[in-house]
């Protein structure tokens, strides 16, 4: 997947929009409650947050399309990401 840090937008490797990341609360991943592997709960909005490092592009697209409230966590240094 690709991430544009100037617009905080995540794309698939093919350039399809996955999500524009916009959260005013600056949540810390390490402080969130794990639900299952790669998924944590945000108490602020009661949304699941997905660890994008362990999912494939099409899996993330499916999750976001199924539940548009799904939030994503991106680390600029994760292996499956290129920065645009």
């Amino acid at each position, binding site marked *: 997947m690709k991430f544009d840090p100037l617009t*905080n937008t995540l794309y698939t490797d093919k350039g399809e929009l996955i999500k*524009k990341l916009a959260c*005013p609360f600056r949540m810390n991943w390490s402080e969130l409650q794990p639900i299952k592997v790669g998924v944590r709960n945000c108490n602020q909005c009661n949304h699941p947050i997905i660890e994008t490092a362990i999912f494939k592009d099409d899996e993330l697209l499916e999750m976001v399309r199924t539940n548009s409230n799904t939030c*994503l*966590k*991106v680390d600029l*240094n994760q292996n499956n990401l290129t920065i645009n």
Partner: protein
Amino acid sequence: MNLRGLIKGVKDAKSNLVVIKTARDIESMNKACLEGFFPLVKPVEPLEMIKSKFSVRQNQNTGEVEMITDFRSTLRSNRTVYLLDDLDEDSNSEQPKYETVIDWTYYYPYQFNLPFAAYLIPKNLKKGQIVFVEDLIEDYIGLAWNQGDTYRLESCEAIWTGTDLEIQYDPKKNISEIIG
């Protein structure tokens, strides 16, 4: 109140903060005055530590150019060329011949219309009130990449002192990750 209740209270308050808008052109600043806001004018000063890198390659056959921002992209491309070279020397002539025309260069990646901007302060804001600044004028590092690129923090909480906004930037936060 127990700790859980205290944290919930803080988070509830956080979601109800007054949002401070930013005007980045004079027309918006003056229009806000008529609507009861005070434009708190600040210079737009790029922080030297905020920088992004790029390199440009050009196809020597067609002239097409390609911008690269990730060191790994170069490694992958070079590796592909080497592998093809190893397989068949004749096929090499049909592969795009890219040449670096601008080597890795760091630059400030943001552009603003004016060299100043203004926070639009509501007249009824109380001294000591915590607010949410939606579009920071000042540069703080919001994201950092281990390849050396750093990016602006877009928004942050602040405290209104009565004359200024004290930005509540937390330098200890993990700045390689973003959630949203």
